[in-house]
């Protein structure tokens, strides 16, 4: 019985021979890339081969397949919002060859059974690799550790543990979780939100919340948890990952922790790199998200932190919601935004086009480092001969008018609706198979469903 993921199981005789012509490798040099049976067989200035299907990639940046450290696929439990099938289609469309599926499903992914179910659904879909995240505590309730060991040893091989959506706020429980996951070289990904300081919180606390009379979500509620958790990680010699860091103060805390040698990694979302709380003045719940949109000062600090490496990864926090959960008054609307299909464009717009990072950096922050944090083998690998053929081809000169109605995700809650963003994903090769070609979703990987 094959107990490995299709993507990490080496070559696939049935994915064929593909020749990517004239791609711009990491935005640095023009190359041809030969993909044979799931593996990069050759990279050269000029490759000629008659027995191939040729993909013209002139002007397109070749990056390793993207890895999203933070995705909500909603299945099981909220199939009205998203399914593994629709979420992974969205991922493929956005250039992702792997996504970490957060544990806040229903039932919560707090047992080996649930994580294996999600893992299996991902393998059946064949659009992208689905790597489940396990809950830190039973039912995300912050009271009792979940079956961390069983999830780690399951077929899903869980390495990232998170109560995302909720904060592991009990300091003792957080300490124990940080210690325990060391058994499996795991990591705790913390949703940093002090619960008492954010009771009823609706938006960033500051000038705009004062005007609008919406209950504030203060930066200190995020920063106090980060400060505590980096100290705990240092104390017990474990590693901690900070989900969706959103404030300037958080950047300074993580920067200081890294200077002191603490094993902390941090993530920023595309929306926190672009949007600010000024948008809340519209009272349109599409801008309601947790943590909330912050100020322009925070946005600029986050961009600088990605540029200098303080923030390690960009994770989407893709959070689809059915229309009725957003088509209402601000305070009763659900929190979250879709992001898989727009992330790379937002990163180009906010980081590449501004000169903050290079395309090589993009490969690091959106592929290599997230795979390394999550200990996901066969993903986030360099584009080199012999490596798995997880490749995205991205045309940075294209423009995309964002229309959520055309998204593969079930969620229509994109905050970029109506915006023109730079760039477009032209092709996504997933384990040697083009799941996206010519900007269009093709067929799932032929090994899909091979349980």
């Amino acid at each position, binding site marked *: 019985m094959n107990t490995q993921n299709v993507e990490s199981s080496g070559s696939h005789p049935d994915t064929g021979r593909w020749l990517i012509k004239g791609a711009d490798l990491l935005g640095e040099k023009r190359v041809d890339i030969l993909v044979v049976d799931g593996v990069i067989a050759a990279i050269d200035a000029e490759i000629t081969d008659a027995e191939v299907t040729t993909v013209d990639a002139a002007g397109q940046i070749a990056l390793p397949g993207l890895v999203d450290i933070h995705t909500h696929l909603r299945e099981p439990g909220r199939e009205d919002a998203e399914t593994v099938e629709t979420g992974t289609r969205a991922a493929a469309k956005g250039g992702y060859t792997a996504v970490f599926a957060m544990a806040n499903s229903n039932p919560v992914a707090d047992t080996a059974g649930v994580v294996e179910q999600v893992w299996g659904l991902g393998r059946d879909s064949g659009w992208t690799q689905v790597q489940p995240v396990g809950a830190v505590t039973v039912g995300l309730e912050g009271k009792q550790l979940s079956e961390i060991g069983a999830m780690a040893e399951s077929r899903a091989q869980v390495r990232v543990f998170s109560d995302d959506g909720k904060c592991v706020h009990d300091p003792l429980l957080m300490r124990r979780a940080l210690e325990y996951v060391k058994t499996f070289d795991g990591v705790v990904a913390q949703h940093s939100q002090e619960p008492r300081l954010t009771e009823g919180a609706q938006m960033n606390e500051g000038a705009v919340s004062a005007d609008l009379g919406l209950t504030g979500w*203060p930066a200190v509620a995020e920063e106090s948890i980060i400060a505590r958790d980096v100290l705990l990680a240092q104390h017990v010699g474990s590693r901690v990952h900070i989900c969706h860091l959103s404030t300037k103060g958080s950047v300074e805390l993580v920067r200081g922790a890294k200077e002191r040698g603490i094993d902390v990694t941090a993530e920023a979302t595309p929306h926190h790199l672009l949007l600010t709380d000024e948008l809340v003045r519209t009272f349109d719940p599409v801008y309601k998200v947790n943590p909330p949109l912050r100020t322009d000062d925070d946005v600029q600090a986050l961009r600088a932190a990605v540029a200098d490496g303080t923030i390690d990864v960009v994770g989407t926090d893709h959070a689809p919601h059915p229309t009725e959960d957003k088509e209402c*008054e601000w305070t009763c609307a659900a929190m979250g935004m879709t992001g898989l299909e727009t992330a790379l464009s937002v990163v180009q717009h906010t980081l590449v086009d501004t000169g903050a990072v290079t395309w090589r950096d993009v490969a690091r922050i959106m592929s290599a480092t997230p795979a390394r944090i999550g200990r996901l083998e066969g993903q986030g690998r360099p584009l080199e001969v012999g490596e798995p053929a997880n490749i995205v081809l991205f045309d940075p000169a294209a423009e995309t008018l964002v229309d959520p109605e055309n998204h593969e995700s079930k969620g229509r809650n994109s905050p970029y609706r109506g915006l023109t963003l730079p760039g477009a994903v032209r092709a996504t090769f997933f384990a040697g198979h083009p799941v996206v070609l010519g900007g269009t979703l093709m067929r799932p990987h032929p090994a899909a469903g091979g349980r």
Partner: protein
Amino acid sequence: MRHLLSTRDLTRDQAIEILDTADRMAEVGQQSVKKLPALRGRTVVNLFFEDSTRTRISFESAAKRLSADVINFSAKGSSVSKGESLKDTAQTLMAMDADAVVIRHGTSGAPQRLATAGWIDAAVLNAGDGKHEHPTQALLDAMTLRQHRAALAGEETTGTGLDGMHVVIVGDILHSRVARSNMWLLTTLGARVTFVAPPTLMPVGVEHWPADVVFDLDTALARDPDAVMLLRVQRERMHAAFFPSEAEYARLWGLTPERLAALDAAGATTAIMHPGPMNRGLEISSAAADSPRSTVLRQVSNGVAVRMACLYLLLTGAR
């Protein structure tokens, strides 16, 4: 003016036009026949998601004095936990051919959502949303302030702003839509606003507002303001650690008999305002509430006139 959602959006000219119109509407209230035919055949819906008999009655009598048909729709208690109901309710109202919707809602932004989400095409009039705005309250307060100054100076109110006036607003600024709407409107009209509250009841971000902020009520009263406005304090705030006890709140931030006596001793012309309903003995003493300085009842009657003016201007497209 298509909708009236906030005072922050009002220009000085728009505000003065509303106030001048309200003055004329108040004159109608003095006549033996208190009705104008201006809105005959038009339908005004009072959509109240939050209990407020006082505000609803004020809007209702305003609409009726303009001969409009009034539908009172109390959504309190219906299933509004899911927001879809605001959309559904709105569309139900449109099916009743509502020309204007007067909406009171417990959460900030609901009127703006109603006006801009494309669900309806009626005029939307914000009758108080969450902690955000309560524009007609601010307009009736401005009307009262204009009258207060005109009476002292023996002048007309028509066409005037509130230039040079100083208004002290005391109490739960953090949770108050009345404070916000007054701040924007009064400053637009040229007045100076001082907020007084315990720091726990002052929002983060207050430093961006066009208002002075002081924590000590006596300091503010010593500046000889034209009016002091006391905001209603919810007694349950005490339990969320905003202040230690009602007694301490009343002593530090209440308009006590002693503070009233100090105003009298100083010969101040300061008016005492309150949007109602009052917590006597908490933010305002009975002595202050019942003193000749109190404009509380004048505010109530001005409320009807201001709401007539707003409905009239919104529905007759006078602007």
